[in-house]
């Protein structure tokens, strides 16, 4: 399995609080991604990174920010969490080689009350 660690694995917090999720990889892959998975919506891309300090928005980026100061770490921040951001969040990594797949972490289950 790809060396991807997401932390925390579970978190419960209150509306309005800041939340940061961490994705750590040991594969030295260039691309990293944050998705959310919700019933009826499948996987939706929040943000992705194509290198250190190089990030871009996905289809559901409102209310989220990301940072990547090191190759191995990709942080997702909810500046002021809302109940609509209750979800399961997945990190993925990908080698930039031709046709390479994404590899996923085990997810973070986030509940915002």
């Amino acid at each position, binding site marked *: 399995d790809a060396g991807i660690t997401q932390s925390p694995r579970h978190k419960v917090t209150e509306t309005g609080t800041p939340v940061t999720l961490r994705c750590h990889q040991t594969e030295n892959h260039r691309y990293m991604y944050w998705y959310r998975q919700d019933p009826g919506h*499948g996987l939706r891309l929040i943000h992705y990174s194509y290198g250190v300090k190089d990030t871009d928005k*996905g289809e559901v980026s409102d209310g989220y920010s990301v940072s990547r100061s090191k190759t191995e770490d990709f942080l997702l921040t909810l500046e002021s969490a809302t109940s609509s951001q209750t979800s399961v969040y997945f990190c993925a990594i*990908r080698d*930039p080689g031709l046709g390479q*797949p*994404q590899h996923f*972490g*085990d997810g973070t289950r986030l509940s915002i009350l």
Partner: protein
Amino acid sequence: AQSVTQPDIHITVSEGASLELRCNYSYGATPYLFWYVQSPGQGLQLLLKYFSGDTLVQGIKGFEAEFKRSQSSFNLRKPSVHWSDAAEYFCAALLDNYGQNFVFGPGTRLSVLP
């Protein structure tokens, strides 16, 4: 629009029966294609991928998939299903090599009857 569709939301099969999960893509060129499996509480695990060449690709856990350009399809098959195969299955397409155009289908949930 570029998309990946999985027509079946939920499929139920008996243990030992054969399985086929359908996937269609909508894209001008042939994308790179993948099948993933997700067990409850887990992330997505790569089953197999189609890159080019042979249209029948073998994957892990006894799965295979066949690419048919004429039908824009990449269906997943297994000759004999095991109870442990119960999970959600996602088809995905990589539409370019830069990584951001990685499109997932909505998933098919597989239930296995004893």
